[in-house]
């Protein structure tokens, strides 16, 4: 199994980080969507961008 998924007896940190980050992104988006008057498209675009940057950082930290 690749160390990305499983390493040294526990879940690989990159995968763990991506899962936690994605879940938090989803919940935070919901809070922002409910508390502000941001348009759905604009919010979706911002979240998608933030999510991709987060994932890219996790991958860079792992492979870089």
């Amino acid at each position, binding site marked *: 199994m690749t160390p990305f998924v499983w390493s040294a007896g*526990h*879940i690989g940190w990159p995968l763990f980080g991506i899962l936690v980050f994605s879940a938090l992104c989803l919940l935070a988006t919901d809070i922002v969507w409910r508390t502000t008057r941001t348009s759905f498209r604009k919010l979706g675009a911002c979240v998608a961008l933030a999510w991709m940057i987060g994932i890219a950082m996790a991958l860079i930290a792992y492979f870089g």
Partner: protein
Amino acid sequence: MRATTRPFERRLLHDANPGTSRMTTLLVQVLVLVLLAVLVGIWALRFPYPAFWLRGFLPARKRWPEREIRDWLGNGRFHRGFLKFFNRDPERNPPSDPGLLAPADGLVTSAEVRDGIRYLVIALSFWDMHVQRSPAEGKVVAIQLSGDGFMDGEGRDFAFLRVKQCPVQTRVVLDTKDYGRLAVRLITSIAARRIEVWPCEGDMLARGQRLGRILLGSTVVLEMPEDFPLRVEIGQRVCAGETLVAAGASA
């Protein structure tokens, strides 16, 4: 004296510590992921309504969205927090300026005049405080109940003025020293049909005193002489017992 360890004990310690550490890490990871999965699961099941951990951070209208309240009206199972919020009864401080006070919290939707009487209609939303207050000091001369039949939607418009069957309502008639004969109509919805009026006929009410409560109701109408100058506009939000809605005829 320095403790010595045998070779097999050293090997055991060497092997055991990383293993324990790995197990702890895995356990923490699994716990975190399970917790997040539960949160996301609850969020998904509750969507589009807010999950319970979110309610505390949201303003009332978003904490209990209208669609969700209408669902509760259908099945009769209300959120306990919403009921507590709905049944709130805060103190109010009537202003010292003379004039008629708003009998209810809500939005002024019309102020039509018919036969010399102005009907100031205040529409209450689910999130407004539902305790009504006396617009002026006076004596309760009559409490009239009417409209058991079907009503017009949620009663946001005064059905009486639209020549339709009246909704469930209670009319409290007040005889005031400064403003003459006034009346407050408490109009409820088809979903609730419950109105509480606390004073009895013959009771004296102070200005801004609690008058009654509409349970999940929708409209309160203040009847007053048409020559009283209005101090509120259509679309303005008013506060029961605090907002001056009209001045007396002499003002």
